[in-house]
């Protein structure tokens, strides 16, 4: 939830302190700086400890929200974090990136009349406290079952499966195509929103538990799924995400200066190009930057461009503010940092110079018409509303699709018409024996918590299979 204070509310929630917008718009440090113990106590005290907590219904993994908040109130953070872990393996991440306003906090009873409990902030507080003050003690591990599991992809979904199955006594190896583990958490979501040290620590935790990590392993190329079975793995989990970038398919899209958000953010985050030339990977620095799209990915790209020194950054989106899919907090932060929103605006072509470099784009103004299949009002162009916009860097963040690299090499695994893996909804089983899938490669681009939830269900089903059979 955006921490707004337009009109005074009774029993307001405790805002998390943040870096000043003017300052943070040019640095890569985390924006909200975290609750103090006192703030956490005060915020926890706001929770009514509902008998039938609505908030829990809004959490895709059913975190025991009143339970962990009560433990904060009692000052037993060690117990609070253990309570959280029982449902959610990555609370430090979810507390920061869940779209709380449409999930847990969206249903909190306090939100009906005033401001909901800051569940995400409290979740983050517990995880950060544990990281700084905890014993780092490992959870107990069941006796070895002698079964080998391969997890393909080290995003939130794969990490959850790995963590769940290693404590159940299986021998787990994670295969990751990139040179570093973490999936979108490392290559997509920027440092100022999710410090990479947090992700690194989660991965280190899995390694200490005994998970093996094979980076630089492109499954489908370096090794195939069938070869994993030949190597002695008993079960395979596919959590390869939805990493195929979509473009607009309008004229001029291959001009220099037009990048997919995947490329832009990978350069910035995974390759740390914001430190260029101290690191070797460059990133284009735009003067006038346009970002197409209005989801979390678009906000991350726009805010990164601002931090890299752009003079102006515009979000161009063809629908209206209500339809913007990004978390409310991200939109709020972006606007505070000086990013302009060009809503109901649709680009129709890119303009370039003789060197093949982007110089601008032509856009059309839109208005909202009848609702479309998605139930949202369809944007329709206003005739004669064309206008030109100067820009030397454009980042395309209009969604992503299923990357066929692995799936096209695994022909006996059924896909749906968009190329996502078909699975049994409850268990995550694919049509290929002993293979499960979950996360964005099943649902299409979604959220961290849904990817983790799918991982947990698959892990349970895999554990049953390893004990009982298919």
């Amino acid at each position, binding site marked *: 939830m955006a921490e707004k204070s337009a009109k005074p509310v009774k029993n307001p929630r405790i805002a998390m302190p943040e870096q000043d917008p003017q300052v943070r718009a040019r640095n890569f440090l985390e924006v909200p700086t975290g609750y103090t113990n006192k703030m956490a106590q005060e915020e926890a005290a706001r929770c009514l400890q509902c008998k039938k907590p609505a908030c829990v219904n809004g959490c895709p993994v059913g975190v025991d929200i009143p339970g962990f908040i009560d433990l904060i109130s009692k000052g037993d953070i060690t117990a609070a974090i253990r309570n959280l872990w029982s449902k959610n393996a990555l609370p430090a991440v979810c507390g920061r990136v869940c779209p709380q306003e449409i999930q847990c906090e969206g249903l909190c009873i306090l939100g009906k009349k005033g401001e909901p409990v800051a569940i995400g902030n409290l979740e983050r507080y517990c995880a950060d406290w544990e990281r700084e003050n905890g014993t780092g003690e490992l959870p107990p591990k069941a006796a070895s079952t002698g079964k080998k599991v391969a997890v393909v992809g080290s995003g939130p979904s794969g990490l959850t499966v790995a963590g769940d199955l290693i404590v159940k006594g299986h021998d787990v190896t994670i295969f990751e195509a990139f040179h570093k583990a973490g999936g979108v958490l490392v290559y997509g979501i920027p440092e100022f929103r999710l410090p990479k040290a947090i992700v690194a620590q989660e991965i280190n935790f899995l390694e200490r538990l005994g998970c093996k990590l094979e980076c630089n392993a*492109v499954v489908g190329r370096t090794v195939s799924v069938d070869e994993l079975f030949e190597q002695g793995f008993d079960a395979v989990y596919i959590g390869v995400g939805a990493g*195929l*970038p979509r473009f607009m398919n309008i004229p001029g899209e291959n001009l220099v200066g037009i990048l997919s958000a995947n490329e832009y953010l990978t350069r910035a985050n995974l390759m740390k190009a914001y430190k260029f*030339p101290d690191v070797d990977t460059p990133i284009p620095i735009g003067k006038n930057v346009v970002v197409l799209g209005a989801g979390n990915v678009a906000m991350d790209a726009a805010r990164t461009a601002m931090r890299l020194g752009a003079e102006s950054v515009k979000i161009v989106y063809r629908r209206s503010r209500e339809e913007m899919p990004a978390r409310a907090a991200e939109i709020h932060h972006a606007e505070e940092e000086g990013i302009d929103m060009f809503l109901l605006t649709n680009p129709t072509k890119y303009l370039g110079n003789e060197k093949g470099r982007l110089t601008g784009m032509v856009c059309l103004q839109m208005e909202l018409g009848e609702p479309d299949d998605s139930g949202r009002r369809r944007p329709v162009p206003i005739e004669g509303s064309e206008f030109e916009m100067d820009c030397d860097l454009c980042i395309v963040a209009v969604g992503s699709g299923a990357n066929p690299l692995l799936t096209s090499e695994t022909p006996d695994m059924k896909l749906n018409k968009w190329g996502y893996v078909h699975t049994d909804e409850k268990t995550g089983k694919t049509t290929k024996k002993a293979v499960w899938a979950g996360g964005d490669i099943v649902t299409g681009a979604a959220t961290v918590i849904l990817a983790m939830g799918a991982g947990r269900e698959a892990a349970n089903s895999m554990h049953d299979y390893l004990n009982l059979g298919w």
Partner: protein
Amino acid sequence: MFKIVRREEMAEGTVILNEIEAPLIAKKAKPGQFVILKADEDGERIPLTMAETDKDKGTITIIYMVVGKSTALFRDLKVGDSFQDVIGPLGKATHLEKRGKVICVGGGTGVAVLHPITRAMKEVGNEVVCIIGARTKDLLILEEQMKNASHDLRVCTDDGSYGHHGFVTDVMKEVLEEGDVKEVVAIGPVPMMKAVTNITKEYNVPTLVSLNPIMVDGTGMCGGCRVSVGGETKFACVDGPEFDGHKVDFDELMLRLNAYLEDEKKCHEEYCTIRDAQ
């Protein structure tokens, strides 16, 4: 870690060969495929074609021209040193078929990329005429290997210091004139590939080229490597790197290759200054 077991300098130290331990990749690699390498923690991911693979030894061989900071960093690695990351095999393998008479044309380090393809072309039963070129004699690479990989090797230098005096395209024209050529494979600098395809279009001979756009992941997730082929956008790392040369928009490729020219220059100069100071 991927250890370097052999290192050679060619073409007056501007072209380097590294043989690297990478058993998984060596086992899987086919002609035409490439790897992405990263020297150290802060390094850039650099795509290079495998010039040679040895399944039994578990090694792959790369041959590269030192052009910028990253390739300069690679050059400074010694036998026994390691690349931190090597990823592959990436890209589609060359489509190999017995067609009859085939010309393989290579320029610069493109010759290294061409070598395994030429050999494979011969192995499937084609009659292979190979034409390689360089600016001057000292920059010519892999002459001996190319001779063995083909039936008929013709060498050219721009300055006439060795072999035929002139461009590979001149010699190629002569061979095309002899007739009966079923396919041309051209790998080298973009202007060379463009010139080759302009000629083979006239002769109506299908032509395969291997493209080298800027890449990041090499697995189809960034779109940085996009090229226009027959009016469609393709991702060279997964749809290629080999394409029908008659359909490739080489002018666009050339502009896109210069995207980071200024930045890269700065980075490379800084590196050279620091290194020379040490």
